[in-house]
């Protein structure tokens, strides 16, 4: 394992410290317990948005803290959800009295830890709502699993719910917008290579030179099935089909198309995937109204990508377009 780190056990602390130095105009970093808040938190009268999860998915979540998106991010150890004693103070720090929405990716650990923190916050008089993100269509049989995972759609939920909070929506309204985004977004991913968790030191799975994993999540876990390597168009079709099918995308639909890199794939390849995905969507008679291409929710240095499609309506489009000023997403300001 070769990584630009000093010690597997200090990876998150040192990285967050560096992040805080670079983005001192945007965020405040709290150490021990570790969490990141928007510089001007709590924002008077605004609903607070808190998300978090294991580290290793950067820029998610800290990179999305700032005006128009998250008020706080709570990073756990690599691929390990944070603990209530981090989530609780983050929640308290961003509560202006208007309540706080927790955006939680659907993993057992994240759900349990946020649940506990939410109860503790409620006990301290803070109203908390939870938006559970579970957009991964790779998890087919959610009856016999822990349910669909939260993956690429998380970025879109955070942006759009963040814009709703910024325009002054109330607690239930912000949560409802978050749920609406989650209900209209689906994602599927592929890995061309595994990633190596620093403390583990060996790749999270072994792939032959001609194999890829279809339906991976964002934790270096193996996917639903392993297939022979295919070209970019073939892989794109495989990922997009279940996404469009599950959403029931039909002629006349307007969508946001999000091609996300898993961390180790060059940007140029993401554009090749985007190109094909846009063609397929156009062939269905739907329109790509908005796009996002880049490394936004990653799995360390994993090679691969995920494709997310969000069905848009006018309000969601407007909220997507609203100004945002974070380390990783910025426009209109």
């Amino acid at each position: 394992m070769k990584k630009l780190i000093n010690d597997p056990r200090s990876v998150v602390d040192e990285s967050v410290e560096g992040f805080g130095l670079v983005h001192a105009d945007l965020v405040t970093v709290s150490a021990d317990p570790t969490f990141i808040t928007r510089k001007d938190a709590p924002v008077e009268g605004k609903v607070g948005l808190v998300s978090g999860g294991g580290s290793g998915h950067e820029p998610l979540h800290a990179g999305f803290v700032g005006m128009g998106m998250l008020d706080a991010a709570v990073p756990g150890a690599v691929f390990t959800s944070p603990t209530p004693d981090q989530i609780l103070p983050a929640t308290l720090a961003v509560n202006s009295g208007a309540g706080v929405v927790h955006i939680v990716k659907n993993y057992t650990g994240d759900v349990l830890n946020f649940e506990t923190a939410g109860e503790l916050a409620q006990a301290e008089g803070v109203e908390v709502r939870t938006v559970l993100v579970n957009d991964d269509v790779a998890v087919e049989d959610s009856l016999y699993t822990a349910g669909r995972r939260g993956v690429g759609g998380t970025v879109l939920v955070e942006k759009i719910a963040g814009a709703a909070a910024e325009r002054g929506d109330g607690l239930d309204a912000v949560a409802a917008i978050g749920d609406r985004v989650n209900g209209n977004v689906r994602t599927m991913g592929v890995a061309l290579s595994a990633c190596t968790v620093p403390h583990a030191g060996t790749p999270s799975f072994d792939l032959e030179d001609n194999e890829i994993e279809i339906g991976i999540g964002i934790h270096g876990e193996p996917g639903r099935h392993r297939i022979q390597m295919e070209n970019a168009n073939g892989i794109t079709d495989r990922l997009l089909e279940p996404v469009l099918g599950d959403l029931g995308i039909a002629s006349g639909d307007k969508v946001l198309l999000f091609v996300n890199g898993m961390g180790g794939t060059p940007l140029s390849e993401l554009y090749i995937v985007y190109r094909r995905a846009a063609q397929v969507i156009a062939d269905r008679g739907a329109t790509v109204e908005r796009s996002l291409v880049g490394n936004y929710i990653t799995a360390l240095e994993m090679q691969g990508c995920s494709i997310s499609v969000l069905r848009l309506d006018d309000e969601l489009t407007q909220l997507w377009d609203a100004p945002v000023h974070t380390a990783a997403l910025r426009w209109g300001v």
Partner: protein
Amino acid sequence: MMLDVKWAVKWLTMCAQAMAEHRVELIELDRAIGDSDHGENMDRGFQAVLDKLAEAPPETPGAALKLTAMTLMSKVGGAAGPLYGTAFLRASTFLGDAAEVDPAALAGALLAARDGIVARGKAESGDKTMVDAWTPAAEAAQAVAAGGSGNVLAVLVAAAEAAEAGAVATDPLVARKGRASYLGERSAGHRDPGAASSALILRAAAGAAA
């Protein structure tokens, strides 16, 4: 023979040793069907428990377990943190502030721990989780305690053996809860890391009483 706070502290110390020793093994188990962090998390958590025990030595077994619960909850993260946190918290509550633990109380505490895990994680037996170690362990403890031999060591040895057998028995199962469930059929053929760490914890409990 009764168990006191010394046993509890020795147990937790042996847990920390076991997690450090089996850290890589637990990471490897989690690597196969999860996200490679279980050994690291458990090791970090129990090292923190050691620190806390040194800082503020508990006076009763229940207090030791409560301190453990709070520490695991705030240091482990992931699925295991809240689950083990709840388990130790429920066991602690069950024991109250008694200075000594007899076989019946011991078996009751183990059952409370198991029930806490089930309440929190909603897993059933056979879902390939730590429940598959704790349920047979709690049942074996009950059986021995009910036998009335009065031997806490025998209760703990029975629990440890049952947990170990339960962990081994997760090998062929298809996971239906936790991260491994995403793998579907591909999760069969691997031991559940949480069941494995549970067996280590219960073996340490017996070791501390020996």
